[in-house]
């Protein structure tokens, strides 16, 4: 099992995850209430995190992409918290 075949596997895997992101995008766009859109943002955030890490493995420049995905995980968390805190106070249905 050489290392080369696994690049293709990572590529296919990140494409599948991209497809899932598109599926979630449907709910984000047509979601009835604002909170469904908020979950959509959270869901797409974690998926993009994994796609970023996979891209690191595809391009074999892992340390750069892992740092990017680390920062992205933190940002995703902060955005979710801020939006939830804002919506809680504002009482938007």
């Amino acid at each position: 099992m050489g290392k080369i075949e696994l690049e293709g596997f990572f590529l296919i895997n990140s494409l599948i995850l991209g497809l899932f992101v598109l599926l979630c995008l449907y709910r984000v766009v047509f979601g009835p209430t604002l909170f469904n859109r908020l979950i959509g943002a959270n869901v797409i955030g974690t998926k993009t995190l994994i796609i970023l890490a996979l891209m690191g493995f595809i391009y074999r420049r892992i340390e750069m992409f892992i740092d990017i995905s680390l920062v992205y995980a933190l940002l995703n968390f902060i955005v979710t918290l801020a939006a939830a805190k804002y919506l809680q106070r504002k009482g938007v249905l």
Partner: protein
Amino acid sequence: MYIVSILFILAGTFFFFSGTIGFLRFPDFYTRMHATGKCDTLGALFSLTGMALYNGFSLISLKILLIAVLVFLTSPTGTHAILRGAFDSGVKPWTKDGKSVIDTQVRRK
């Protein structure tokens, strides 16, 4: 070792898939929330451990596991924050016959 990492990553993709399906098909905000909150965290954990295994024993795989721990801690907290915000702003849980089972008394601070 590659087989194990491939299996881990495939398991992660499977859980992402089930989370997405749950996110699309469930009728109500709360049910969607419980689907995505769990499946995404687990999918992320599986994928990240698979990648760490593929990378062998090095500083980078330690950093990948660090991200896995970070996701493990932050994702449920974020989900809880969203739920708290939604519950307080009066989102009614869905019931099959439409009657609200629990009376959502909104706790205004």
